[in-house]
């Protein structure tokens, strides 16, 4: 049998087949282990060290953490992320659901409309931020246009008003993510059995009650996914704020991500910055780990 492999050769080939996937995957595995999880551990250690402008590995216990929680700016950042996160999540879900319901009425040009609503998600946050910054800038955008059209008393200066600037960021962020949330809800709505809606019609339920009592309760998994996606986007939001307000006016639109950046790279407080980064990671993990756990458990059973 000249063509058949010897028993030894077959064994080598089988060993090769067993090891090849592991060999191919191992470089990326090692890189991720080092650059993602390794740096998470490193950052965590830095938050317990005396690091300032440069890493300093001497142990400082909870000093950086207490400085973080005593910092006035961190308080503002936390306050802002609450306002921003809450308004962003609620507005996106309410508007997304509303758009999805309207788009689900078997209207013409649904495909085109869906694409139009989804496009903002394709833009990077920097582009969105810059565009909205121009649009809301009193000297450049909406207000100037209104004045030129003859509405001299028109005024919309939230972008430069330290009390209102955070809301302009909410507007831009909602504009960007609503289409995506709408697509999620639309997929959920499409999965609902049409006979159930017919049954409810015969039962005498008006359209709004059909939505409220029968359809929306069935979208619970979509709500959960939407909240998780939006919440981690909110906590990570950095580029949008940098592009639109740079955290200003003053510190009025500072959020944990911009706080971390400015403490690490312009205020030479790497320890505090590391503590704030670890804190953000913990919050996101607290959101996502239970979600992944429940999702994975469902798909396994």
């Amino acid at each position, binding site marked *: 049998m000249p063509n058949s492999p010897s028993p030894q050769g077959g064994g080598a080939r089988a060993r090769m087949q067993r090891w090849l996937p592991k060999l191919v995957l191992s470089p990326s595995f090692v890189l991720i282990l080092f650059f993602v999880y390794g740096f998470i551990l490193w950052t965590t250690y830095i938050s317990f060290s005396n690091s300032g402008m440069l890493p300093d590995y001497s142990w400082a216990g909870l000093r950086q953490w207490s400085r973080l929680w005593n910092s006035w700016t961190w308080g503002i950042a936390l306050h802002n992320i609450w306002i921003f996160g809450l308004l962003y999540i609620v507005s996106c879900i309410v508007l997304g659901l509303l758009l999805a319901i309207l788009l689900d009425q078997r209207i013409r040009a649904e495909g085109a409309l869906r694409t139009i609503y989804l496009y903002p998600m394709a833009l990077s946050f920097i582009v969105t931020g810059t565009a909205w910054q121009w649009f809301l800038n009193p000297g450049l955008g909406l207000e100037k246009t209104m004045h030129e059209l003859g509405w001299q008393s028109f005024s919309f200066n939230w972008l430069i008003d330290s009390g209102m600037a955070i809301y302009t960021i909410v507007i831009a962020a909602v504009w960007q993510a609503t289409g995506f949330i709408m697509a999620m809800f639309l997929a959920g709505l499409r999965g609902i059995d049409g*006979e159930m809606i017919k049954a409810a019609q*015969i039962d*005498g339920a008006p359209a709004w009650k059909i939505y409220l009592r*029968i359809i929306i309760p069935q979208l619970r998994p979509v709500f959960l996914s939407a909240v998780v996606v939006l919440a981690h986007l909110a906590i990570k939001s950095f580029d949008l704020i940098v592009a639109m307000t740079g955290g200003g006016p003053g510190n009025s639109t500072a959020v944990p991500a911009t706080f971390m950046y400015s403490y690490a790279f312009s205020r030479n407080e790497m320890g505090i910055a590391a503590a704030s980064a670890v804190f953000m990671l913990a919050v996101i993990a607290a959101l996502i780990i239970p979600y992944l756990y429940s999702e994975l458990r469902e798909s396994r059973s």
Partner: protein
Amino acid sequence: MSFLHINNIRKHFGETTVLKGIDIAIEQGDFLVLVGPSGCGKSTLLNMIAGLDSISDGELLLNGRRINEVHPAQRDIAMVFQSYALYPSMTVAGNIGFGLEMRKVPKHERREAIERVAKMLQIENLLDRKPGQLSGGQRQRVAMGRALVREPQLFLFDEPLSNLDAKLRVDMRTEIKQLHQRLGATIVYVTHDQIEAMTLATRIAVMRAGELQQLGTPQQVYDDPGNLFVAGFMGSPSMNLLNARIVMVDDEPVARIAAGEGTLELPIVRDREALRGWQDREVIIGLRPEAITDPASANRQDGVIHETSLTVSLVEPTGADVYAVTHLGGRDINARMRPGTQLSPGEQTRFAFDVSRMVAFDPQSEERIR
């Protein structure tokens, strides 16, 4: 004035016409089954009665009232769906009571009505469960409970048993029939299963390609099919249809059928006068399997028996019966023999034809000759 009157109803979707003028009238307490192959328009017709599909043309009268434009909720009907269409976020009690709740029935009355229906359907112990925790048969009961609790004028059933396994389907069929007899409700029921149609209906409407083929009692549809389609669709095993030529023997018409090398001549009993006009022309004759038997089990009391010897080509015992297949008039035909009959393929045996049950069809128009 009939209770439900479907008067020349048509349905168009753009250029295509799915219902081409349906006329059906039934009385209060009737159980109308719409039966036909898929795509015949039976479900569309049911949806139009429910108000879920618009009526393109024609008139729909329920108890003397025109309901063409009436909203489904105001038609005083209830419907059981193929997928059951239970509301997954509500309990069984919530599902059954939802229609009453929407009609603003006070809570304690609602509770009483739900309990009454649950007792009737033997689902009292399931009232606090969610539909996701129920088996197929239990969901079916809940769906029926939701329809029953409102005590409407008309019940609509859209293939309610097609998602159940074979045994459960037979049980539920019996229960639906009992329910109909006990409540005296008027029901319109859609199915593609002709056995369901035969067992449940007081009136069967056989439909094909958007047209009503025949409307009648189960017995009429079975014994007196109006055309070839109805003859072939109703009954299992289906009616034997064979080519024959009408010839005159002693001035009486007989059907001459090719049988092997020779011919078989069956005397005409039914529709004799009409078939006189078909002298020397080809027809298709229909004989139910139970009208072709062994001589011992032939019905000599009511029937007119004509015996002949034929070669058996296949034997199919079913337990309750033995079906013998033989070649006649260019087709394989099924004969229902006495259970326990010992036959083997290739064997010559005596067959008894009950010619009083024979019907004839025009091969071109496929209509019954009568």
